[in-house]
């Protein structure tokens, strides 16, 4: 059964949140959703770019009180 995992990368700067997401991806199963919490605005742009480049699913991004919630699904 697919899991929803939260990766708390608040306070880290580029490319820290992306690298934490990728480390989390390595430990996840296909179909799992990963939600990255980031205070780094650049990562909110970079993570979707990386997701599209490598072929995973980008599910959305929203900002709440200065924290970006970027949700992706491992597709392969």
């Amino acid at each position: 059964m697919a899991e929803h995992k939260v990766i708390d990368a608040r306070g880290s700067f580029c490319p820290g949140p992306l690298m934490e997401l990728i480390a989390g991806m390595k430990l996840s199963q296909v179909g799992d959703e990963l939600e990255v919490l980031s205070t780094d605005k650049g990562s909110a742009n970079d993570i979707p770019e990386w997701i599209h480049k490598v072929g995973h699913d980008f599910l959305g991004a929203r900002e709440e009180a200065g924290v970006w919630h970027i949700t992706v699904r491992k597709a392969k």
Partner: protein
Amino acid sequence: MSDRINIIVVSGARERLQMAAMVASVGAVSGNEVSVFLSMNALAHFVRGAAAPVPNEGEFGALLAAKRAPAFKTLFEQAVELGDAKIHPCSMAMDVMGIEPAALEPWLSEPLGLTKFLDDARDAQAWTF
């Protein structure tokens, strides 16, 4: 589409090491074949247990040190572990410093001479820091 990215790092300054590590790590985890060549002042930072302070080149280096930016060595190691990057110490720099491979971080690849690195880098992107 993957590409080959070759990165030569000779500076021991924080900003250049950080930028080189960023290019290496993001390049590697994006499916590119990344090869890094560490020489001159950069290599001393990759000796096991190296505790020498990393000099800042300018104000930005001080900001990097004060903020929670990922450490450049962590990023280089992630480039290897998550993206299969190869990070080679320069054999000439090792000779000058009088060190053996066992003295360097265990996640580094085998020492490389400049001739081999340049041959491998032919027709590929090359970045110098």
